[in-house]
């Protein structure tokens, strides 16, 4: 359920970037699957990789996480009572903390779903205080905290780019082991040597993706996604953008979840995360990743479909596995509601489409000024006019070519969710994001340079940005889209041509989402 990448100044890589950057006009001749060795160098987002269109007219101020109503975390509006009960029961399980007897580990990144998915509320993304710091030594564990995990940094999973023999790895290497915990007597396995892997530039990171509203995303048909990608193709062609879908290997349908759109469905997303992030085997991922018999404290799979009813208020949930309930929580959760200066209608029906209901929050009450920021930035940050202008800027400079504002669901088995217009701000395609963001990890048909267009709904309430959480600043996140080989270079050039006021409006608009 998580993912990321890390930027670090490396002199050798910088030199390589300078040399490579000098061949800019030779353009498109990159190999499709960037060799991870290159990717490690490419991981260094140097000034030489960056757009020469200087943001010379001043950088906007990111007003930071907006306040006001959460606008997220609840059930989809319009669900039946049975479905709401099911959602509530699944939300409870999403918050459960697992321990040794539950099958936690032997290797893991955290002990609950909601610990990672907590900003701005349950189901979100990395919180301000990283819970991985505390879990490292919980119940007597003696884990060494890797250098890239800090109390105020993002929740991170780590992937190694290459195996020791030089072959591609790309897999998650869990941060912690249960060794030493009072609920895991006799287990004696060691953590990976992260310091050594960091020293040889072999580690990339991913942060948790928010799960709000994902049932609606699951309900968008492949045909609708394909039509959307083709609909504004001519505009994309004028911006250097192409994009493609990461398709499932067996049935060729579009995968759409995760930083590289590597997961086909929410159930798969849940099953993989339960196994990879928490070490809990389940009906999709039956086998322990660490099979040392001294470290097993529950039968496998650790999670399964109960044959005897549980005791929740939801009859449906009582016969459901944990991963089924995690998927239900994601599937039934409402999308994040943007702030708006107008009272948004709860449901705006037309003949074929119904706008998703959301609780509107006045934009002027939810865009705080950044501490110490210039007065003009603070005033524009609280301006609904600025947000509206930012929306126009977003479309005009080409952000919406990939961050598609609106998609429509197909027929859904959930009450009131058919033919619903949603605003995920993503085309769910993967795009080449250039050397500055490349992590050298291939997943499905997405290569080491490609990432899914991150959905921007709810971005106004996120703390950390980009797949590895490398920045808390939206302007910096925008700039990081440009580097050698990125499809976003022209759009970022356009952004940098804007006067300061319009850049500020764009950032304010994003913080309103």
């Amino acid at each position, binding site marked *: 359920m998580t993912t990321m990448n890390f930027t670090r100044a490396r002199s050798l890589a910088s030199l390589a970037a300078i040399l490579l*950057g000098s*061949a*800019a*006009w*030779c*353009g*498109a*001749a990159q*190999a*499709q*699957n960037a060799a991870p060795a290159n990717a490690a160098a490419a991981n260094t987002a140097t000034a030489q*990789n*960056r*757009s*020469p*269109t*200087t943001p*010379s007219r001043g950088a906007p101020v990111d007003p930071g996480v907006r306040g006001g109503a959460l606008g997220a975390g609840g059930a989809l509006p319009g669900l039946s009572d049975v479905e709401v009960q099911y959602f509530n029961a699944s939300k409870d399980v999403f918050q459960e903390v697992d321990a040794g007897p539950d099958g936690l580990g032997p290797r893991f990144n955290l002990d609950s779903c909601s610990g990672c998915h907590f900003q701005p509320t349950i189901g979100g993304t990395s919180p301000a205080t990283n819970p991985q710091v505390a879990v490292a030594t919980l119940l007597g564990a003696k884990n060494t905290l890797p250098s890239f995990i800090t109390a105020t940094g993002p929740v991170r999973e780590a992937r190694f780019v290459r195996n020791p023999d030089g072959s591609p790895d790309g897999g998650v290497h869990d941060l912690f082991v249960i060794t030493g915990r009072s609920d895991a007597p006799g287990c004696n396995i060691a953590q990976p040597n992260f310091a050594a892997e960091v020293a040889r530039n072999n580690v990339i990171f991913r942060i948790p993706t928010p799960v709000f509203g994902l049932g609606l995303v699951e309900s968008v048909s492949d045909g609708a996604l394909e039509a959307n*990608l*083709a609909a*504004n*193709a*001519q*505009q994309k*062609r*004028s911006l*250097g953008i*192409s*994009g*493609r879908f990461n*398709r*499932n*290997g*067996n*049935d*060729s349908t579009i995968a759409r979840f995760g930083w590289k759109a590597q997961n086909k469905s929410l159930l798969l997303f849940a099953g993989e995360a339960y196994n990879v992030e928490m070490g809990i085997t389940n009906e999709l991922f039956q086998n322990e990743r660490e099979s040392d018999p001294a470290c097993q404290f529950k039968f496998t799979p650790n999670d399964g479909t109960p044959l005897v009813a549980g005791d929740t208020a939801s009859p449906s949930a009582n016969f459901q596995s944990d991963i089924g309930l995690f998927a239900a929580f994601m599937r039934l959760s409402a999308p994040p509601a943007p702030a708006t200066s107008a009272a948004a209608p709860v449901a705006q029906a037309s003949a074929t489409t119904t706008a998703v209901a959301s609780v509107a929050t006045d934009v002027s009450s939810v865009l705080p000024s950044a501490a110490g920021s210039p007065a003009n930035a603070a005033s524009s940050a609280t301006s609904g006019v600025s947000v509206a202008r930012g*929306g*126009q*800027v977003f*479309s*005009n*400079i080409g952000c*919406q070519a990939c961050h598609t504002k609106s998609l429509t669901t197909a027929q859904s088995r959930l009450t009131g969710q058919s033919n619903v217009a949603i605003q995920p701000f993503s085309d769910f395609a993967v795009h*080449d994001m*250039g050397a500055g963001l490349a992590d050298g990890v291939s997943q*499905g*048909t997405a290569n080491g*340079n490609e990432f899914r267009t991150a959905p921007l709904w709810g971005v106004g309430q996120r703390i950390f940005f980009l797949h590895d959480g490398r920045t808390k600043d939206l302007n910096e996140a925008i700039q990081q889209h*440009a580097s*050698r*080989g*990125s499809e976003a*270079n*022209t759009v970022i*050039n*356009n952004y940098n*041509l*804007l*006067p300061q006021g*319009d850049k500020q409006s764009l950032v304010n608009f994003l913080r309103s989402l």
Partner: protein
Amino acid sequence: MRRLFFPAAAAVAVAACIVGLGVARYGAAPERPVNPEDGLVANGAYSSDYFNLSYRLPDGWAAGLAGPAPSQSGYYVLGTWVANDDLGGTVLVAAQDMFFAEKPADDVGAIAADFRQVISSVDGMTIDREPAAVRIGKRPGHRVDFSGVGLHRAMFALEIRCHVVTFNLTTRDPDLLAQLARSLDDLDEARKTLGLSVPDCVRDYAVADNIVHRVEPADAGAKTAAIPVRIVVGQDGSVKQVHVIRATAAQRRNIEEALRQWKFKPYMRQGRAVDIETGVMIKFKQTDM
């Protein structure tokens, strides 16, 4: 006879020399075929042998960041230029292979009209100049101008070898846009000194009726990706050139190996077999379900 013979021999020799040069650069089996992505900037000018284009950069502009690798739909970012801060602007030169576009279109005029339609639907965007046929250098093309949020833009499109090549200009200043647009008047031919023809491009020639012998490429990696390939079919029906536009190294190797064994019916133009280039989409068969 004798006096006539010498100039004739000289002419033959010169012709042979020209043809020889041509063969070396564009002929039947060059060591390294020229492809759309192989353009270069040298001495302040962009030059593409494949597209037979030469464009001199305006003063005050520098090469921008390289674009992405060619896409799965045959889209190329050929290059970018960025103006210095005082000027403020960008130029993006791109090409779309018309054989593989998601939204097929046969003529540039229709593409410009479609572009205009999409752009006009963007909130706050104004169409400043409706799509119209123009000369771009010596070539026919189309132009659309538009603006929004203080950026003034123009898209020039022309068709070359079944690709839509576009020059996308963006500036903060309408006068600079006009100046940039004028710089396209000097668009020249990269190969004019040789003056040799290139193969006709023929859509949908790689179909069962025209393929005499076909070899499937060996499996390599993901079976879900359709891989766009341009090929040159010789007068004898053999495949003389293979350009795998986007694939992994293993897919590329296997596709090249297979396609070079294909045999086509020769393409006839006015009763004579001629070289052509066409497109074929390779999809590895599903075998693991």
